């Protein structure tokens, strides 16, 4: 591969690309190449500029781009519109993050694929349709001739993404640009899509530019990796080089923040601080302000993207300390096993007893028979010990969120009971007494929707304390609010802020502070970190663990991410189609899973080790 890389002209050659959105410098002086058949991954968190780069390659950006983008020998930033349209979809094609919204809801999927073939190949209608069915076969969709006649909403998320991939392959492009193509898909579906990408690379020789925030995913499909931070390429090299022996402190920090399912259990390390102001980036190293090993020189002078003295020529890092980074960085903190003692102690704090909830679609007419009800939660019984975390893990549609809502009293289960210590809770939260309401709090996935946009942080966090009558004196209330904010690493200066003035991580911290302000005995955490960046997620998870120890709070932790669960849970329950298929302490469930489904889930998780065998489960 490397021999070919050096000889053949690159499919994509990006030189000194900069993108600005008004005063915002989103991408600064990024250069990289992709050889024919090669796969380059760009890793970054939100604000890194990775998606801007992907769309700039197609010249589809709202901002202003400078530099050069050579696509199959043509410089596209200066190309006239018609010539650009002739390249798009033919030489380079794109696969998007959210296939449901990327497909036109009003057009049959077969036609959406055939359209590109007719346009670029001047093929006839029947010919283009036949090729479109052939492409759907190519991406392993069952009964492709029938699927071609369906509309996007009639397909599952995994099927939709295959259609998008088939559409991208329609005109045998030389380059596939994939922008977070598996984010939002279930882990088993993700594994199958990644395997498909690899198969297509092997068989068609298409080059890939793969954008992702997930290092495990990138490890599965990429030959080389570039790491982006705040609009700059900070490290570049082969996947093995970058992910196994990173030479930039940011890459190292990302790896240490990433929860994983393999290796010894360790403590997640958050990255302190936040992104620099992109309107006026610092003159020195862009990461210096958050870096553990930065010195005065780092703050003053921007390092170049270069190889280390002893290292491989292709492995470059934008760090002054690239030559001795391994010795400079502090060792990785190991887990305090006491954190996650799996022994349950005493009587359970919460008991979920034989809870059932089904959903029934409305019949067409009042007197007609409706479709069969779907059992979202099917006779589930679970216990949570005091001060411990029970994680319920499942894929979309497994019923895990419905279960959480039943516990919180947001929906009415048909059968079963929720017991909090000695009391049976009323099924609906509005029927529960103040005491029971106060004892069970909720942290939602999306803090934007869960925080009142017209309330300041002081009001949001103070409300539970006035509601439950803990504090009436306003000076004392303010003191208590500040204490709760400081417990989640926010300070007094946040008191007067409104949700829109904060980042996603800060908003989720406010949600956590609000939950603890009620002094609850149990908090239902419904995917509390899945909308957050990895580095922020690590910080939030650590804070949840610390607060739990301090207040002896129990968590019902809902998640789709086995890696996250492994880091927070004392007990794990795997849920599928409304049923608990397996439960136990994480060491047992992850170490020696009994059920095939659990095994398949674990096998599907993209780890830093490229997977050889095809995935076990089909989507």
């Amino acid at each position, binding site marked *: 591969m490397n021999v070919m890389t050096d000889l053949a002209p690159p499919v994509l050659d990006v030189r000194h690309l900069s993108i600005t959105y008004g005063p915002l410098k989103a991408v600064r002086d990024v250069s990289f190449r992709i050889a024919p058949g090669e796969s380059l991954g760009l890793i970054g968190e939100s604000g890194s500029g990775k998606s801007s780069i992907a769309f700039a390659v197609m010249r589809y950006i709202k901002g202003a781009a400078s530099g050069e983008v050579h696509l199959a020998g043509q410089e596209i930033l200066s190309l006239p519109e018609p010539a650009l*349209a002739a390249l798009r979809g033919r030489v380079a*094609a794109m696969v*998007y993050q959210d296939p449901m919204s990327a*497909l036109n809801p*009003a057009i049959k999927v077969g036609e959406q694929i055939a359209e*590109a073939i007719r*346009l670029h190949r001047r093929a006839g209608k029947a010919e283009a349709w036949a090729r479109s069915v052939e492409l759907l076969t190519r991406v392993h969709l069952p009964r492709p001739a029938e699927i071609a006649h369906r509309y996007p909403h009639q397909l599952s998320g995994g099927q939709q993404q295959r259609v998008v991939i088939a559409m991208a392959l329609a005109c045998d492009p030389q380059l596939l640009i994939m922008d977070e193509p598996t984010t939002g898909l279930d882990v088993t579906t993700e594994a199958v899509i990644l395997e498909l990408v690899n198969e297509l690379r092997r068989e068609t020789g298409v080059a890939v530019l793969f954008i992702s925030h997930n290092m495990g995913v990138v490890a599965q499909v990429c030959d080389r990796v570039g790491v982006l931070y705040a609009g700059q390429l900070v490290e570049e090299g082969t996947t093995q080089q970058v992910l196994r022996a990173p030479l930039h402190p940011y890459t190292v920090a990302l790896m240490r923040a990433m929860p994983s399912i393999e290796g010894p259990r360790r403590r997640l390390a958050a990255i302190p601080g936040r992104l620099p102001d992109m309107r006026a980036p610092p003159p020195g190293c862009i990461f210096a302000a958050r870096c553990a090993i930065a010195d005065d020189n780092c703050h003053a002078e921007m390092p170049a993207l270069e190889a280390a003295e002893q290292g491989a020529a292709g492995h470059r890092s934008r760090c002054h300390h690239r030559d001795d980074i391994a010795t400079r960085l502090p060792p990785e903190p190991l887990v305090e096993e006491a954190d996650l003692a799996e022994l349950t102690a005493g009587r359970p704090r919460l008991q979920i007893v034989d809870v059932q909830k089904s959903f029934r679609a409305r019949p067409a007419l009042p007197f007609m028979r409706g479709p069969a009800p779907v059992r979202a939660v099917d006779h589930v019984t679970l216990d949570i010990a005091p001060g411990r975390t029970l994680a319920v893990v499942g894929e979309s549609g497994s019923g895990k969120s419905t279960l959480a809502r039943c516990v919180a009293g947001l929906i009415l289960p048909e059968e079963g009971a929720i017991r909090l210590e000695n009391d049976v809770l009323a099924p609906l939260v509005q029927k529960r007494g103040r005491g029971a309401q106060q004892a069970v709090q909720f942290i939602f996935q999306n803090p934007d929707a869960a925080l009142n946009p017209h309330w300041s942080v002081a009001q949001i966090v103070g409300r539970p304390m006035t509601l439950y009558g803990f504090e009436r004196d306003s000076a004392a209330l303010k003191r208590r609010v500040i204490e709760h904010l400081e417990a989640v690493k926010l300070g007094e200066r946040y008191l007067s802020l409104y949700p829109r003035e904060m980042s996603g991580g800060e908003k989720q911290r406010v949600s956590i502070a609000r939950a603890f302000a009620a002094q609850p005995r149990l908090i239902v955490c419904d995917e509390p970190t899945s909308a957050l960046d990895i580095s922020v997620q690590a910080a939030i998870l650590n804070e949840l663990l610390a607060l739990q120890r301090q207040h002896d709070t129990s968590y019902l932790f809902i998640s789709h991410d086995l890696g996250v669960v492994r880091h927070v849970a004392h007990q794990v329950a795997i849920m599928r189609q409304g049923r608990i298929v397996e439960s136990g302490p994480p060491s047992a469930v992850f170490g020696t899973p009994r059920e095939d489904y659990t095994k398949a889930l674990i096998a599907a998780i993209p780890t830093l080790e490229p997977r050889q065998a095809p995935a076990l489960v089909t989507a």
Partner: protein
Amino acid sequence: MQALGFILRRVALLAVVLLAVSVLTFAIVNVLPGDVATAVLGDMATPEQVTAVRAALGLDQPLAERYLRWLWAALQGDFGRSLQHGQAIAPMLSGRLGNSAILGLITLGIAAPLAVALGVVAALKPGGWLDKVIGAIAVGAYALPEYVIGLLFILAFSIWLPLLPGSSLMDPNENPFSRPEALVLPIAVLITGMLAFISQITRASMIQVMGSAYVRTAILKGVPRWRVVMKHALPNLLPPTIAEIGMYFGYVIGGLVVVETLFSYSGLGQMVTNAVSYRDVPVIQAVVLLVAAAYGIGNLIADVAALLMNPRLRS
């Protein structure tokens, strides 16, 4: 299947609405102060005459009974007799209903596609000069009531430039197409009002559609711009827009009342205006019910059309 259920539910709902409308109009018209018999006979009538007329009209019977009797007859197509003209109402209605329908349907037929086209054009370059011109005209037309627009049109096109008749002066049984030039100004007035509203609604949804991820997909597939608009944006734009136009149906009917009176066009609008000033209760009841039915059916058709065009709801 789902679509069929939806349509059946809507038809059932329409029947309920119409029943409620009939109860309400019957109640309001009969509860209003002033006696119908006095209105018929004039101020000089003796109490005996009034009693006799009341008995003849059945006004001495209880309200509920009168309502049920009226409803039963109406269901069979008999709306009673006009107090003003003494004729049976049903035959009077049919000719005028046709005249109004001609006016309304031609308006919809021209204005709806034109308004959608203007909205789409305006949305292609939001803030461009074309968008600004269309927007300015729309706001102006929306701000002016129909009778002002009507008077301006009469002033411009039949007085200053005597091209078109400013008044139809039509006999109720005359075929409006025998003098098509008399239709031009009334329809122009109705179209102007409708263009304003629908074009701006279309513009807003079109801007949203053009910013959607699936339009981005089409552009990045190399689809030329005009094809993106026609094949990718329009099929998603039309269903909600058609439903909006259905909602606008009521405005068209309201506009008809004004325009028919203004141009002396003998349609339902003119008929009901006359009936109200004469307190011709049976005519008012019949026309209100008919208008409510027309509005409901128009809305239903629009919703069903929108439903059938949307693959997500159709299946």
